[in-house]
């Protein structure tokens, strides 16, 4: 890691500028996900999933809204995944669709509780953070940077934590 600094600079530039070096060969490929993301972001904002107030209502059992959204999303997701497996539906590139199973570890409990705390404080899970910034809540950039730092610190201590 002799060139850590120059390498770091290059990489962060790429991430900040939506990775232009990648665009030449895979632009079309990744563009699809940008479109899905845009639709998803609009959906997030218009359904108020990204509203701090809606999250507070959810955790105080004062509104059905969030439960309805998560619940119906899961129902649709379950049916869709079932159909994909049942009819062996392929991707648009003809590739077989694979979903790797999740293994249980204690992190899902400890980390889950910690994320729950953060969710109720910030009123946002990671996705809504990006949408909130888009709506003009610029201070949420700080929340996002802090979340990135949290992920980094987790990576740093990962080997020493119970899993």
């Amino acid at each position, binding site marked *: 890691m002799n060139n850590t600094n120059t390498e770091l600079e290059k990489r962060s530039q790429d991430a900040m500028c*939506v990775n232009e070096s990648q665009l030449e060969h895979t632009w079309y490929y990744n563009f*699809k996900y940008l479109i899905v993301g845009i639709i998803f972001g609009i959906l997030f904002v218009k359904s108020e999933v990204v*509203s701090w107030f809606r*999250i507070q209502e959810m955790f105080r059992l004062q509104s059905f809204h969030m439960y309805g959204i998560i619940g119906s999303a899961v129902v649709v997701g379950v049916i*869709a995944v079932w159909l994909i497996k049942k009819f062996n539906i392929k991707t*648009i590139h003809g590739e077989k669709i694979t979903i790797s199973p999740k293994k249980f570890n204690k992190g899902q409990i400890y980390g889950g509780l*910690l994320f729950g705390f953060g969710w109720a404080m910030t009123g946002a899970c990671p996705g809504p953070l990006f949408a909130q910034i888009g709506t003009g809540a610029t201070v949420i950039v700080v929340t996002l940077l802090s979340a990135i730092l949290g992920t980094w610190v987790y990576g740093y201590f990962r080997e020493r934590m119970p899993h």
Partner: protein
Amino acid sequence: MEFLKQPWPWYIAGPLVGLTVPALLILGNKSFGISSSLRHICASCMPAKIPFFHYDWKKEAWNLFFVFGIFIGGILAAVLLANQQPVGVNPALADELAGYGITSYNSLIPEDIINWHSLLTLRGFLLIVVGGFLVGFGTRYAGGCTSGHAIMGLSNLQWPSLVATISFMIGGFVMANLILPYILSL
């Protein structure tokens, strides 16, 4: 257009969120998840010598396109589909929040307590910086967030994801009802 500008009801929004799962699978065999983007940002920007961040993040670049799209979607929704009405909330919540000085409902976040100036107050620092840290740390420790576990994982009937989702909810209930009132009173 007027219809689109109203807040979308759960029975429209929920199924559409659910359709993101097959959309990403069919478009390119991608499992729906958002918190991983934070890891890719770490891996791309500051991997240091941490093994957890040494992987070919470019193969996951799609995820960064996806979250960038969410950001643009936020802009479009705010600019083109803005709803002039304040955010509607349960009156009991409005009463409680008024007690903490939260009376502005013009934004999706409580502008009275989450803004650039409040960053320098203990309350603002806790909500913005500490809260954000817990989101990033917790989701990675849990191996996913609401999208990865609660939606993708449950869609694939993974019981570890159910454990994670229940843990998210317990954490949220404890924070919102038992701890947050003290933070908001600061």
